[in-house]
């Protein structure tokens, strides 16, 4: 089980994340939602160990990240929101770099990279530098890198960004099978429709605090419960944007 316990992060007095707690059981896919600036990326950076919490802890199967950061990081796969990669490397070179840094055995690493590149339809481009890849191709490289070491927890920040329809379908199916094997997924996205299809439960963050949590089965049953979009709008106090849109048009006409 993965637990975020009262995670808090301050930046020079500004409280970016305030006592955020949630759990992911084995086999669960937790959707992590929130508007821009709500503290999602900060939380994710703390979960994967890129950022140290000001208070609180990240616990993976009873082991705290602060006590054994290397051990915890070894069991986490991560896809960042932006495809930040060393674009002068080829896909094979990048995956070998990641595999070596994760201490994977050479023989197993080479065969695993070759198979992943084939399955992610990147094998033909394996000797091209990542700078020549499209956004979707880079995203697939990041997904392959995150899965390379067979992680227990997969942390995905906007993983469908840039993927075409077929890659999106493949990846959605992959996530379901991955979770069914008893692994855990933290899935952060702005795409409410995707979250509704992929996740088993959702947590909604606003101004650094959790303002709602629910099972997705609830919201899927639109007859009895509000939709995820309604829930999100209500929880994050989204205003009616009609007058803002009108104001924008007004500004345009002033010119």
């Amino acid at each position, binding site marked *: 089980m993965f637990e975020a316990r009262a995670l808090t992060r301050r930046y020079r007095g500004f409280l970016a994340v305030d006592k955020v707690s949630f759990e992911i059981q084995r086999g669960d896919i937790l959707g992590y939602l929130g508007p821009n600036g709500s503290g999602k990326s900060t939380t994710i950076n703390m979960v*994967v*160990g*890129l950022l140290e919490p000001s208070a609180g802890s990240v616990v993976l199967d009873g082991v705290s990240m602060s006590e054994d*950061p*290397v051990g915890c*990081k070894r069991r*986490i796969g*991560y896809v*960042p929101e*932006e495809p*930040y*990669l*060393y*674009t*002068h*490397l*080829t896909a*094979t*070179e990048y995956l*070998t*770099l*990641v*595999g*070596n*840094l*994760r*201490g*994977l055995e*050479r023989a197993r690493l*080479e065969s695993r990279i070759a198979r992943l590149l084939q399955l992610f339809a990147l094998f033909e481009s394996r*000797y*091209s*530098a990542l*700078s*020549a890849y499209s956004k979707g191709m880079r995203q697939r490289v990041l997904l392959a*890198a995150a899965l390379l070491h067979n992680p227990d927890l997969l942390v995905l920040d906007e993983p469908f960004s840039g993927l075409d329809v077929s890659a999106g379908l493949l990846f959605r199916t992959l996530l379901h099978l991955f979770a069914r094997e008893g692994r855990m997924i933290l899935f952060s996205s702005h795409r409410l429709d995707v979250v509704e299809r992929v996740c088993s439960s959702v947590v909604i963050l606003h101004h650094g605090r959790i303002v709602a949590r629910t099972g997705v089965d609830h919201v899927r049953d639109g007859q009895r419960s509000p939709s995820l979009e309604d829930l999100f709008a209500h929880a994050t106090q989204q205003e009616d944007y009609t007058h803002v849109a009108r104001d924008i048009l007004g500004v345009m006409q002033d010119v």
Partner: protein
Amino acid sequence: MKTVLAETAAFGLTRHFFREFFYLRFLTDTGAESVRRTVIGVVSGLFALSILFPQFVVGRYAKMRTVADYRQAFLSDQLFTICVAMFVVGLIAALVCQSLFPDETDYRVLMALPVTQRLVFGTKMLALALFASIFVLSTTVIFGLAFSAAAGGRWAEQGILRRMLAHGSAVCLASIFAGASVMSVQGLIAVLLPRSWLRSVSVVTQTATICVLFLSLPAIAHPAGYAALLQTRATLSLAVPPVWFLGLEQVTLGHRDAFVIRLASVALLGLAGSIVAIAGCYLTIYRRFDQLVLRSSHVPWRGRLRPGWLRLASVEQRPARGAIARFTSATLRRSGLHQVVFCSLSAIGAAVSINSLIGFEAGPGPRGQAAMAWRFVEAVLEMPLVFFFFGVAAVRNALLLPLDVRANWVFRLTEDPAAKPDQLAAIERSLIRLGVAPYLLVSLVIQAAVLGAANALLAAIPTTLLGLVLVEWVLRHWHRIPFTCTYIPGKRQLVHSLLITFAAFVVFVNLGGGLVHFSLTRPRGFVTVCAVLLAALIAMRRSRLASSARVPLEFEDSLPDDVTVIPL
């Protein structure tokens, strides 16, 4: 007026393009601020030089006893100032040569706005002219006007105004020629080469230009030799551009010798040719902007990249060490910026080495000859140490510069204190392979030719140990994966940094050279020197490895603490 001007698109674009020349994309804001401070320091230093240099010249000419001495010294100094001006402007042009023409970003961003292509090209050229004029005018004032104003004395043949006009215009035109030549080469590459070659050829040309400029420093430092080319009317003068402009100056001063007129004609033809080439390139790019410029910058590698380093994986037993070694190797082979830094500093090392081997003048009599031979042997023994100093600095500085800093999360995510010694071992290996080993081989060949094979092999042992000690010294506070940490250059004042570097160079080269020489002259000395160096190497290495286990990897460069706490 200022407000009206600021509101025009032409002003905005010119300002934008002008600022672009000073913008270093690989630095953080703090790093860029530090670079600005450093640039101000350099410019201040140059202006200080403009005050000191004439004083030096006045003192020198006052001591001249004959008109022949004065003429020879004056000619050498004229050539020296022309060379320095050309070197400065040529180097600046080579450093910014990737930004000399409108590129893909300009095309994609500006062509979508309601501005004409003519305006974009016009403002880019104007910004370029403004940028170039800073350096051309500075060098003209410092090396042209200030020098010729001071270079009078009792033997002076022309009046001060005529001297200033002649030398100022020669320096100005020579520096324009240097900048225009570099620019025209880059322009021709952009226009003529196929897309797949463009980026690599452009970077290689840039690196080669910078290397050639640095390798020309020994020649610049000894102008008397080729000032004689003009005096002897040697045809070889036609192959040395600074001599063309010296010829042009002579013509301006009233000399009507056919050879000098020929040199002046070549100077003007060369200048006109490079300007015409630039204009032609600009015009071609202007007419075929969409076809040419879209391929002219940041062109990704689309071909197959040689996976040679993957084969190295089969012999690599330690994954962490292999990962860093291959990452370092791939980056140094493919990143233009890192190649430029590495090759430039290595070229400076080669230039300083060559400089130390030439220009010996024998004193009178056999004792003078013996002293010269002695100094030459010393210079040959010190040569590998000079190479090491600059070679290791070249690798170190190339590894310090970040590449895609935001991509370093993969190293942060996989950071493991247990793997850190292996990762640092890969960096140590890179420093030895690129900063010590090749120079040791080159020096061994030269030393074998000068000192004999046996002496060269004997000298190689303490020399190697000195190289390894230098690597340990450089790595003593190193806690970074290459290219992954933000970088703030110029943390110290420029003068402070230069003094420390110079002191380190003098101590390492002179003390090291002395030790090598001592070890060759006495058998006991050899054993003692090697034992001391080996002990120092082991002690430094142990201390470094002990501290490396305690300190985590650095991913953020930081300035030294502003406030020093005094423990009272």
